[in-house]
């Protein structure tokens, strides 16, 4: 039967490329990713570090000048830097656990057997898909002292309405509430994914063993969710450190509720002070790194 062989496909240059040995092929496949990363991340980070040791103020028109650690020294003496850092840390410390708890609650609720899953899913996806800048605007409106729905609710409950954006504390509260609303839904989606990978048989076994629902939650659900939670927490923390859109849309009095990201943006775009803003950025990058390492250490310790 072998009289009619199928023809061998032509070997084009592309084929030769495709047939090369695996290491070369792998290098080629990884190249676009790394070229892009070099342009968009590596080179900028290098410039950033370089700029942070220079006085680069485009507004003055003066040429940039090596100043060593001067920008960092300025930063240490800058009350606004410390305030912005404090605000950023507050947002991290409030909204990360906040969105985890709310997200877990939403995930548990959404994991219940509903007939109509569509609306439930949509309601989990909607906050996630609403751009942060919109969320900022919407919640700024919610907290408006005269026409906002929050004060209306307070009034209806017989409580005193507040001028939210006149007080740093209340503004921070409003920012945190908006942030938690926006971020808890994605958290819920990830945790929902985690919940659905827990085998039913574990709960059946626990039922047979006579464990209460609460014990099942603390002894089965929570521990098995830890891996999903950790991943979600790392990403959530990194984004919380970068909080910009929501605080930007909901400014409090003065710069009392400015975040680090906003301060960097202000120095960079409004003051065109690239040296100082770079130093700020390097500090912020340090914060992100440190956070990631702390998490990773925890993950490793947990792994053992």
């Amino acid at each position, binding site marked *: *039967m*072998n009289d*009619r*062989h*199928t023809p*061998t*496909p032509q*070997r084009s240059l592309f084929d030769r490329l*495709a*047939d090369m040995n695996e290491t070369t092929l792998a290098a080629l496949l990884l190249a676009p990713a790394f070229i892009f990363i070099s342009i968009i991340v590596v080179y900028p980070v290098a410039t950033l570090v370089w700029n942070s040791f220079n006085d680069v103020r485009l507004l003055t028109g003066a040429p940039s000048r090596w100043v060593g650690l001067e920008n960092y020294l300025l930063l240490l003496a800058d009350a606004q830097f410390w305030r912005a850092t404090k605000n950023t840390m507050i947002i991290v410390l409030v909204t990360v656990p906040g969105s985890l708890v709310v997200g877990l609650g939403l995930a548990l609720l959404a994991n219940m057997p509903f007939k109509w899953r569509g609306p439930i899913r949509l309601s989990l996806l909607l906050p996630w898909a609403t751009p942060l800048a919109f969320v900022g605007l919407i919640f700024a409106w919610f907290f408006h002292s005269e026409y906002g729905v929050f004060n209306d609710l307070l009034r209806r409950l017989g409580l005193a309405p507040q001028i939210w954006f006149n007080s740093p504390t209340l503004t921070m509260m409003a920012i945190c509430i908006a942030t938690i609303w926006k971020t808890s839904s994605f958290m819920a989606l990830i945790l929902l994914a985690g919940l659905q990978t827990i085998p039913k048989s574990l709960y059946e076994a626990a039922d047979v063993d006579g464990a209460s629902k609460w014990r099942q939650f603390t002894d089965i659900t929570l521990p098995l969710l830890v891996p999903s939670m950790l991943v979600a927490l790392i990403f959530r923390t990194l984004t919380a450190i970068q909080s910009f859109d929501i605080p930007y849309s909901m400014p409090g009095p003065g710069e009392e509720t400015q975040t680090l990201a906003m301060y960097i943006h202000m120095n960079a775009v409004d003051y065109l002070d690239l040296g100082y803003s770079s130093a700020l950025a390097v500090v912020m990058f340090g914060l992100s790194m440190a956070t990631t390492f702390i998490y990773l250490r925890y993950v490793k310790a947990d792994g053992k």
Partner: protein
Amino acid sequence: MSGVSLQKVTKVYDNGTKEGVKIIHGIDLEITQGEFVVFVGPSGCGKSTLLRMIAGLESISGGTISIEGRVVNDLAPRERDIAMVFQDYALYPHKNVFENLAFGLRLRKFSEDEIKKRVNDAAAILKIEHLLERKPRALSGGQRQRVAMGRAIVRQPKAFLFDEPLSNLDALLRSEMRTEIKKLHQRLGATTIYVTHDQVEAMTLAQRIVVLSGGNIMQVGTPDAIYNQPVSKFVAGFTGSPPMNFLQGSLGVCADTATVLLTDGVQLPLAASWLPRLAGAHGQEIEFGIRPEDIGIEAGAGFGAERAAMSGTVVVAEPLGAETLVTFACAGGEVIARMPPSVNYRPGEAATIYVDMQKCHLFDRANGVAL
């Protein structure tokens, strides 16, 4: 004409050291066109690696592989004009059966008519015409197996490669598909290389069996040769079900007689035909091998002239319907014998068994080589 030819083929994996790990140690093998060859051996023996090297899925570290006279060392799998049936079938889950079969033809730019014709022909041969519209996940295991074979057939390649294709099927389907494969080969007459760890498949399908171990060829031969003239204890122990029994002993060789001395003082006289081969082997440590069907309970008909009696104790009897397997403890070891269903042993019972000394095998205990 040569179908597939392997010359000094080696495979070395990089493990960080300078030498690497050698998986295949210089294989030489000629497979003639249209021949059905089975690679058999325990897992890890390198049979699958060798098959994948022929397919082009593994690189070749040394030597040459040629298919119908063309060296294929540097050709990509698609350029070797071979077809392969995988252990888990590897059907494209997102394509229906027709498209699974047609995929290779489409890539080779066949006309639509030709594709239809070939797919329909293959489907007819494999009796899967009614499944063409289905997706793989809607097929049973046996049907998937047929589709996988169909995908190979439509291409009309220079060689078929089978990688343990039946191991995921249950026993009944397995023997059915075994028959199908054999029929198919008889019908198509294509060069076929078939990898399995199942010696029954090897025995039933192969025109020639290649027994592999540790990346070396142990023996190449027809099923009959492999079964009846194993070159080593390894090959002997690999074929047959249940496998050959081995008892430890030594040789007693005189001028005109040779005897196997087993433990507990059991002595078995060897046929005279052995003598030429055993010159100077007196006292040599050996393994005495005898297949279960060559042990009987009586000196009656069906056995060759020279039988030796051994006394032993019944350990367990396993009736299989057509026969009963009886395990005896004797001569410091255990032997399994294939008995007629009529035997009626109780465990612990003493019995005398007869060994057909015409069919026995002797292996050097040090290196396992047949004497």
